[in-house]
């Protein structure tokens, strides 16, 4: 546990000094949110929940997917960047030589990535609320558990495959290619939960997505911890 925290701290400290990952993610997420909110008809999300006008329902259905597409791609950019920074700075070699359990390496790296993703979300989501004209109090409190469970899943997949694609040609292309179909349940789940919140103001029967997302998190955190040694081994 102490090792895991030390590893995560190493990533955060390197980021605080070098600022090589989080700013890229944040700017990328903001660009995407800005661009994609053009798709929403003006004022469609302004009407109060839980009784939006009929014409605005479609916009709310779409809004969740727009937000999570932005977050997903910002995440992928960041996860790849964070693994590349490790490789270029030879931190990956050092960690490989250190007498540390690969599962701890994975978990530490995952926590670092999760922190970067959270920073990006903390800026991208308010921006989305702003651009889409959503009354903040109707979305933000309910969105917190969604963000938590979905970000964990994205970071779990992204950390594993970020490291995995480091030694491939065209690695910046390989990472999204591998991550997208595997992370699909997270993207769909988080989008549906967000849209439901925008339409009804509560999760209702769509709350079952939380179970699916949690199962996803558990599966991929376990898989990452178990298989990370094969991914980083020389």
């Amino acid at each position, binding site marked *: 546990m102490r090792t895991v925290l030390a590893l995560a701290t190493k990533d955060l400290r390197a980021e605080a000094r070098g600022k090589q990952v989080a700013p890229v993610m944040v700017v990328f997420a903001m660009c995407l949110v800005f661009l994609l909110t053009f798709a929403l008809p003006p004022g469609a999300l302004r009407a109060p929940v839980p009784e939006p006008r009929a014409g605005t329902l479609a916009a709310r259905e779409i809004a969740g997917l727009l937000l999570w597409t932005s977050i997903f791609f910002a995440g992928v950019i960041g996860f790849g960047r964070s693994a590349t920074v490790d490789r270029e700075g030879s931190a990956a070699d050092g960690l490989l030589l250190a007498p540390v359990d690969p599962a701890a390496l994975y978990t530490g790296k995952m926590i670092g990535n999760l922190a970067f993703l959270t920073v990006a979300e903390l800026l991208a989501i308010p921006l989305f609320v702003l651009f889409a004209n959503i009354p903040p109090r109707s979305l933000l409190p309910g969105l917190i558990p969604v963000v938590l469970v979905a970000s964990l899943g994205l970071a779990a997949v992204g950390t594993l495959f970020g490291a995995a694609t480091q*030694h*491939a*040609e065209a690695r910046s292309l390989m990472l999204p290619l591998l991550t*997208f179909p595997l992370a699909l349940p997270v993207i*769909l789940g988080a989008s549906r939960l967000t849209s439901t919140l925008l339409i009804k103001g509560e999760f209702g029967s769509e709350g079952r997505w939380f179970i699916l997302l949690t199962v996803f998190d558990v*599966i991929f955190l376990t898989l990452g911890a178990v298989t990370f040694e094969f991914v980083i*081994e020389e």
Partner: protein
Amino acid sequence: MRKDPLLLTQQLLAAGFLAGLAGIFFWVPTEAFQGVAQRILYVHAPSAWVAYLAFGVVLVCSIAYLRTGDMRWDWVAHASARTGVLFTALNLVTGMLWGRPIWGAYWAWDPRLTLTLVLFLIYLGYLAFRANASDEGRGARIAAVIGIAGFMVVPLVHFSVDWWRGQHPSRTVIRPESDPALPAEMQIMLVAMMALFTLLYLVFLALSVRLLKLETDVMELESLEDAVLRPRPARYS
């Protein structure tokens, strides 16, 4: 010259498929509601079965490779992924050809269709990774991780695409494969095609494994040649 049992199997298989085609077009009765279009089922369903089988083999061989480090497991996993992607593509294309006259659209966001497409993308990613892996051993290990992760995510993708479209009445389509009362000829034909496709899968698998083994042998010979003939002319290095 040594007699190749694989070649003989291929010849038998070619004859089998000709007989199969004749059976599909001249022997099985035409389905009452869908007409001739239903006959594509005899290619569509077996290719789906082979695709799932192939990806299951990728999973098993990937685990075996990570546990033993024996390259032969990796060859089988790699070969099976290639074959699986091929049959998934065949399954998707035949499904769309069937969907156009029966559903009125090539593509419907039916959960099973979507799941198949996601599987196709996952293993296409697997193959793309293998083609781009710069280091043989590491590439094989990481590919095994992808092969395992790809299969683990299948039930989750299944639920997510099912729930995503859950509110829409997309399930009111005719589903010949779930109809319990198929006439005997149709059942026999389907089972025969399943068997032929499985054999075809095994032949593709064997050929592909042989190719991968040859590639490895060639690389070994080249490095051996390197060691013997150094220093080499610049164009070879």
